């Protein structure tokens, strides 16, 4: 595996290897010296064309704990406004001897384009409305841990409901692709205006009736809905959105016992998720955050641990 551009690039074996190694990596967090020498001498540039403190920080910590030199470049709004093309921006940094770019970009496909231009390896830290593979991996890691805590292993037969603005979400695409590998059953829940074109061929159940999903879901993953979508006519008011698709206190009670609640953040409390749900005993939101560093350490190790850059 040379790059991680999306879950579409992963095999089931790769995905499980990344999750398994993340467990080892999580142990490192409890050591007196939180550092492994595996990526000593490697240079990782986190280049973020869009703000994301959470993702950027966890990639930075992951790189540092593996002893890589990590550098953050905030490139928000830079290239086009300065008249520089994305290609020139990336080739300039590439020429400095970077080993790996961790790239976040508001445009779909940017990570794949960069990978086709530069010599360095590329990790997609979220591209537009396309993919966010490390988020899906950390979601799966969190879910697997949750399932194990309930005494069962694996994803087979597990129902994972993903609810919210699926049209503009890169998280949903990566999660669906990853669960297709891991064996979880995904149920997509959204108003019809916020469903991607062709979603019926994604190999998962699609519905606009959230209430019908509640009693059978093992995981409900709530996605952030942005206020500007109202202006786009995707739904009339926040109130109506919450009534139909929010994880309200009433819906929280309708979940089956042990169902885990996920949210990739940042949360709009009171819109797609009530505080009661966000802070519930079965909320996995903070677990997700805690898993982020371990998953990213695992991904960076898999990509950069060997000069051959190959896992298979």
């Amino acid at each position, binding site marked *: 595996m040379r790059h991680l551009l999306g879950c579409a690039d992963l095999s089931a074996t790769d995905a499980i290897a990344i999750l398994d190694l993340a467990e080892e990596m999580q142990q490192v967090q409890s050591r007196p010296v939180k550092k492994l020498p595996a990526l000593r001498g490697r240079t990782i540039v986190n280049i973020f064309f869009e703000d994301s403190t959470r993702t950027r920080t966890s990639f930075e910590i992951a790189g540092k704990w593996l002893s890589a030199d990590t550098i953050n470049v905030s490139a928000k709004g830079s290239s086009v406004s300065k008249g520089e093309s994305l290609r020139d921006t990336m080739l300039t940094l590439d020429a400095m001897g970077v080993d790996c770019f961790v790239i976040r970009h508001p445009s779909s496909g*940017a990570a794949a*384009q960069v990978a086709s231009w530069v010599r360095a390896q590329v990790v997609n830290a979220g591209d537009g409305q396309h993919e966010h593979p490390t988020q899906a991996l950390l979601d799966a890691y969190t879910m697997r841990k949750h399932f194990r805590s309930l005494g069962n292993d694996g994803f087979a037969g597990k129902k994972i409901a993903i609810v919210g603005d699926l049209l503009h979400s890169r998280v949903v695409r990566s999660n669906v692709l990853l669960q297709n590998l891991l064996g979880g059953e995904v149920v997509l829940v959204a108003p019809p205006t916020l469903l991607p074109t062709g979603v019926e061929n994604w190999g998962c159940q699609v519905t606009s009736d959230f209430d019908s999903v509640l009693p059978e879901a093992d995981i409900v993953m709530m996605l952030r809905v942005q206020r500007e979508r109202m202006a786009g006519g995707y739904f009339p008011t926040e109130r109506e959105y919450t009534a139909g698709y929010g994880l309200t206190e009433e819906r929280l009670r309708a979940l089956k016992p042990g169902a885990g609640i996920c949210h990739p953040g940042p949360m709009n409390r009171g819109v797609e998720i009530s505080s009661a749900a966000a802070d519930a005993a079965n909320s996995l939101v903070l677990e997700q955050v805690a898993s982020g560093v371990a998953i990213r350490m695992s991904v960076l190790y898999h990509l950069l641990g060997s000069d051959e850059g190959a896992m298979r």
Partner: protein
Amino acid sequence: MSLLITGARLADGTVTDLYLNDGVLADPASAPVGVERFDADGLLAIPGLVDLHTHLRQPGREDAETVDSGTDAAARGGFTCVHAMANTSPVTDTAEAAEYVHALGEREGHCQVQVVGAVTKGLAGEELAELGMMADSKAKVRVFSDDGKCVSDSLLMRRALTYVKAFDGMVAQHSQDPRLAGPTACCHESEWSGRLGLPGWPSQAESVIVARDVELAALTDSRVHVCHVSTAESVEIIRWAKKRGVKVTAEATPHHLLLDTPLVASYDTTFKVNPPLRTSEHLEAVREALADGTIDIVGTDHAPHARQDKDHPFDIALPGMLGLEQALAVVIEVMINTGRMDWPTLVQRMSSTPARLGQVPGQGRPLAIGEPANLVLVDPTARASVDAAASKSRSRNNPYHGRDLPDPVVATYWRGRLTYSR
């Protein structure tokens, strides 16, 4: 210059000699002994191709294309006339601007350059440009288009259609509802746009404008031309309107005949074009419509872009691809080699009909004694792998790069002068 082309086969199958003398076709029997000869045995001679839809980028973006380089590419593709679209900088929206481009064409063109005038000032879609003065200028503008942008205001479109009747003009519409397909729309709305996370451009964003425009053409009894038809829905509407006698004509681009949506899966911005590459069922509908005449002509929408305007993320890179050099190759591949179309029909779609729509005298004429010597010698069986670097264009956004395609153009003659030779 005098030249005797011997043994050429015409589109209708007859074999003949062609005598090019003083820019016209003369009686081969009158050719003097010792005149320069060209043995065209096995080659086809067809009238020089006419493109109703070319972006030459001059003035304003001479780094991407000039009249010189663009018409050089045209000659390489077998064209003897191109129509230079108005979206230059400054926009061709005045008589002066039109005459400037016209003069450039006369001075530097490797083929005839007809000027297309803007419909609205600055392509802003708000006020009519000086349509009449452009028509009366030395450029004799007859085709008006805001191409690149849609004249989306229904009332303004009605006025434009009515106004151009005074000088028998034609409005060529870039059909794109700006709300259904906004500025970020860059991928045919389909399972592909959904998977790739690219903002979708639904086929109906085209067909709703086509439907409105044919109604306005009926209302005004004026001529509307639908640029780059890319969808099955548009084809159906045009077919229906023609049956009703509406004065609507339509064009298909080479790329909408051959290239489909999955090509954008690599996010290679060479394949970003507006309207976007469609899925196979739309390609099929466009091919069928070009064969049966619902679509009247092939227009290249040759849209050169400098590398720095393409090396951006997919939703930000400029839309457009080259077309002049491979247009004939693509039409041969898709229409002739599949038996969908014969050579006389190809000549209509790529030469005589576009010349008639653009009202260009001396172009698209049959290869007969007394006619202007605008012609192409074609080897219908030659093939080659397309090399973007070998282009005569200043730009390299060639979507056919690396593809095995026919390589038909052996020589192009414009006004009796050799403008391209293999």
